[in-house]
């Protein structure tokens, strides 16, 4: 049960990553692999700042700015210098690897003895339910503190989801969505699509960096490798969310991405519990996304064949 609650908490933290991927992939149709670098970048920035004694909330905010700057760079490479979108992302991601090592000073920074956002949450939880108390969930005994932390993460992600939902319904946000949907049309309505793409990719990577920062604070360390495979991970969450929610309305799609992230994390936890080799995790994630991308088109084809043979 403790494992389950931990998985849901990580799922909620990574939902922020899923929302970032949702912005670049789904709203802008921009395959942005910067994510893998900016995820670690966010973790590295906040870990280094927290160790230097900076307020953890401020450190998390700075990681958003760092991620946004990385995304902006990718966007500029793509729009101003006409570099292929995938290649722009690869360039920035590769460069970030060195930057991350410089920020952290070495490949791994432990945060266990530092004051992070989650130390605050634990203190808050202790005030609400008392130190070391246990709670009953579905007949299982779990530390009450873990449940509180889960609740805090849920509140954070709900707030972020609402913020995104609001933003993408403002005039600016609507113009951004139109940029991904039909750039010729929105240019004819006076919008600079290049600026929109740069801003959108920046926003996306800001969220992804915050996801990295929160994960580092939750698990108690930042590692230079922690971003690897995160793009596909986020994509898997978004795809699960879309499968759950066939409706295309913005609010539901955002909710879907969050639920998808939690579900995917749970699936992985269960698979690992059943004895799946952790080394196979990325392989299976990739296969899963591949299936999710190929299956819908494949099923449409078989449907067509069935219709024509009849």
């Amino acid at each position: 049960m403790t494992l389950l609650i931990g998985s849901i908490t990580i799922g909620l933290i990574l939902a922020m990553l899923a929302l970032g991927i949702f912005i670049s992939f789904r709203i802008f149709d921009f395959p942005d692999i910067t994510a893998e670098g900016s995820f670690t970048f966010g973790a590295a920035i906040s870990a280094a700042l927290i160790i230097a004694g900076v307020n953890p909330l401020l450190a998390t905010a700075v990681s958003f700015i760092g991620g946004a700057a990385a995304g902006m760079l990718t966007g500029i490479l793509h729009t101003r210098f006409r570099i292929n979108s995938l290649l722009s992302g690869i360039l920035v991601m590769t460069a970030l690897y060195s930057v991350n090592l410089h920020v952290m000073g070495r490949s791994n920074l432990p945060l266990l003895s530092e004051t992070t956002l989650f130390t605050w949450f634990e203190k808050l939880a202790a005030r609400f339910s008392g130190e070391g108390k246990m709670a009953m969930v579905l007949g299982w005994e779990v530390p009450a503190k873990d449940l509180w932390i889960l609740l805090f993460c849920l509140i954070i992600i709900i707030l972020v989801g609402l913020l995104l939902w609001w933003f993408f319904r403002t005039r600016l946000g609507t113009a951004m969505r139109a940029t991904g949907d039909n750039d010729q049309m929105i240019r004819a309505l006076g919008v600079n699509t290049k600026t929109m793409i740069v801003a959108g990719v920046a926003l996306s990577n800001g969220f992804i960096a915050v996801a990295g920062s929160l994960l580092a604070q939750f698990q108690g360390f930042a590692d230079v490798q922690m971003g690897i495979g995160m793009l596909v991970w986020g994509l898997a969450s978004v795809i699960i969310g879309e499968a759950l929610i066939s409706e295309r309305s913005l609010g539901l799609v955002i909710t879907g991405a969050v639920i998808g992230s939690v579900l995917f994390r749970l699936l992985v936890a269960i698979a690992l519990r059943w004895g799946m080799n952790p080394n196979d995790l990325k392989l299976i994630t990739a296969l899963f996304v591949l299936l999710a991308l190929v299956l819908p088109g494949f099923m449409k084809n078989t449907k067509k064949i069935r219709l024509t043979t009849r």
Partner: protein
Amino acid sequence: MLQVNNISKVFNPGTVNEVTALQEVSLTVEEGNFVCVLGTNGSGKSTLLNAVAGSFPLDSGQIFLDGRNITKWPEHRRAALIGRVFQNPFSGTAPGMSIQENLALATRRGKSRGLAWGLPKSLVEAFKERVTPLQMSLEERLGNPIGKLSGGQRQALTLLMASWLKPKLLLLDEHTAALDPKTGAKVIELTEEVVRRDNLTTLMVTHSMQQAVNLGNRVIMMHRGRIAYDFGEDDKKRLKVSDLLSLFDELRRKDQIDNTVAELVAANYI
């Protein structure tokens, strides 16, 4: 109003695909005029429109609109002055967004877009009012994605969007070419209405000589990147479809003579 001075454009210069699309084209359109642009395939009529809209940089020449030199302006900046309807019905609307969101985007054409709510209630009412006369029963479906609509419906909405804020210039690029005749006629009817209501300065490219004869107060015919004929208000009143057809034939014959002469010369000298 619109003044085009000696503009030229060569696509893919120095390659086998080199195309001289515009050769020193000059054109002045007075305020409130409705100009139909005719021409054979590859005559440069769409290129002229796209040059005014700013889809590509010019090789030479200048374009003035509303007293401002817009030659160096990027496309999105010109959009503040220009409303556009494209040939492809899919080009003018964002398919994944609702009808009302598409219309709402058009209400800010060329204006700043801040963090104000994109689709206030008051706008939806205004949309209903403007969409109802189209008689496409769209007023009931404003929340539906625009991608589900037919080409004709989308083209009618694009026209509404292009003219929502009165543009200094309306550019119509064969906007009925992809529609069936009946829908096309309806969109043309709507075009006339919109242009008349706001007395819009309009440049319409068309392949239909009937449209060119019926609509507007001036016809220009393009050929090989130049303006071959220009019929002003008085000439146009007497213009018939048969006249335009014979002019096309004449242009075509001239082409053939040019080619055969070139061949003769080549045979003699090479």
